[in-house]
């Protein structure tokens, strides 16, 4: 337990243990050599850049994912959670997650998010950003990059 902030402190709501863990030890970090899809995400607010790699097989399933770049704890953790989640998913389902995540994080009212058709599981750890409008873009950066990669958009996506 962290002495700096007590349990009621909403800093712990933003920086949950799961987020800090993924930020410190991002999963699937690094370039994916056999990637079939790749896209950059740029957050002009802070200059953060992230490159997301996917390998999609003939059945349109994502068999591997990776990312590289630099970013804040929120954007790195979100990219790490994303790659963890989408490996093994059909690409259409990954895009469903994209829609669900971007919608959930962009919605301040939790009750609306409850009507989601997809159970976001661990991704709910990102919920804290909903209270920090300037940080929502950090959390969605990797997701926008994934969507762009899967739709084969060639220009880098920006969160602006």
């Amino acid at each position, binding site marked *: 337990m*962290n*002495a*700096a*902030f007590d349990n009621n*402190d*909403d*800093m712990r709501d*933003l*920086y949950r243990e799961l987020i*800090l863990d993924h930020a410190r030890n991002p999963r699937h970090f690094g370039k994916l050599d056999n990637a079939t899809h790749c896209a950059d995400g740029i957050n002009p*607010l*802070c*200059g*953060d*850049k992230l490159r997301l790699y996917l390998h999609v097989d003939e059945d349109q399933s994502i068999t591997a994912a990776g990312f590289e770049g*630099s*970013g*804040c*704890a*929120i954007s790195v953790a979100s990219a790490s959670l994303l790659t963890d989640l989408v490996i093994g998913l059909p690409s259409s389902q990954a895009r469903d997650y994209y829609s669900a995540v971007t919608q959930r994080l962009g919605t301040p009212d939790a009750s609306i998010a409850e009507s989601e058709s997809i159970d976001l599981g661990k991704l709910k750890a990102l919920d804290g950003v909903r209270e*920090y409008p*300037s*940080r929502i873009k*950090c959390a969605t950066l990797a997701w926008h990059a994934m969507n762009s990669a899967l739709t084969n958009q060639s220009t880098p996506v920006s969160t602006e």
Partner: protein
Amino acid sequence: MTNAQQSQSQQAAVEDYRQDFPALQQTISGHPLVYLDSASSAQQPASVIDTVAEYQRNDHSNVHRGVHTLSHRATEAYEGARDKIQGFINAASRNEIIHTSGTTESINLVAQSYCRPLLSAGDKILTTELEHHSNIVPWQLVCEQTGAELLVVPMDDRGQLKLDELDNLLTADVRLMAIGHVSNALGTINPVKEIIAKAHALDIPVLVDGAQGVPHMQIDVQDLGCDFYAFSGHKMYGPTGTGILYGREKLLEAMPPYKGGGDMIIEVSFAGTVFNELPYKFEAGTPNISGVIGLGAAVDYLQSVGLQQIAQHESRLLDYMTQEVGRIDGIRLIGTAENKASVQSFLLDDIHAHDLGTILDHQGVAIRTGHHCAMPVMSFFKVPGTARASLGLYNNTADIDQLIVALKKAQQLFS
């Protein structure tokens, strides 16, 4: 009274002005606001806020146009602000004071109106590695338009210009040198007077980006010898959307207008237009009247506190901040020039500046995080961004102490 006591009482005197700033009297997340982002935008004293409100309430009208009482009042106050600013920076004539929307517009005006007609392929404009984007991009645009080349004076790893390299870059084909007075990202005070003298020895005119200079030191454009000096109202405790371009009258006289429209003409017909005289030639359209009047009130305010007192107070406080921040284990100070004003950039452990900004805000401490619109500076230090604490006349040692507490809490959270 000893010197120490005397300097302590001076410090207290400047701090007392803190109560003039209504925005500083609030709490954020239950903590008193500690505002350490004045380099981005300074808070406004009540006198500025009230002056603008009074004008809106009683005197609002258009300037230079009507014969009625309100228009007369608005014109008097608007032009009165010009006179105040002339005195404030010791310009030789009120015709040398052009109202703009800010430093950015002031620099673009010089790039397009002074440089563009002058430049051709092979000509050069010289700037430096520690500039704000607003003192880079306007020159890149005019270089693209004319085929001229933008050259850059490099800096050392403390964030100081390499003056020996400046000597090699200042050559006869340089048409203008554009240099920041004080770096917004690093706080470095450039030796602009010395640089201007070097440039003038080769007949090269110099534009000084004074956005970060004006709030922190007494500016005398005639003493500096600069040809253009650009600054913003909102960094000197005035309203946003106001700014000044000072230019030598001879240069401004020879320049074509930057924007066309009302107020910048004497006579318009479809056969041709006769432009108005200085300074109106450069002020097309209805200006930001209330903002300019507020800027005049900000000048009054700064002069009532005293620029020299402000400079001394901020210098002491910067030393204290740099010392205290530097003591934290895991701190990397970015920008450690010998001669600095107001600003300290830093990184803490491997915590991203954005995370630091959010955690500090949660403890009432407002700092700027990111690249500070100075991406070449960030590239030089090989960082995506920094956290930056910057000082205004209203800050005190308690603010710095709260910053330190907040930084240590961030460190614990990420440990």
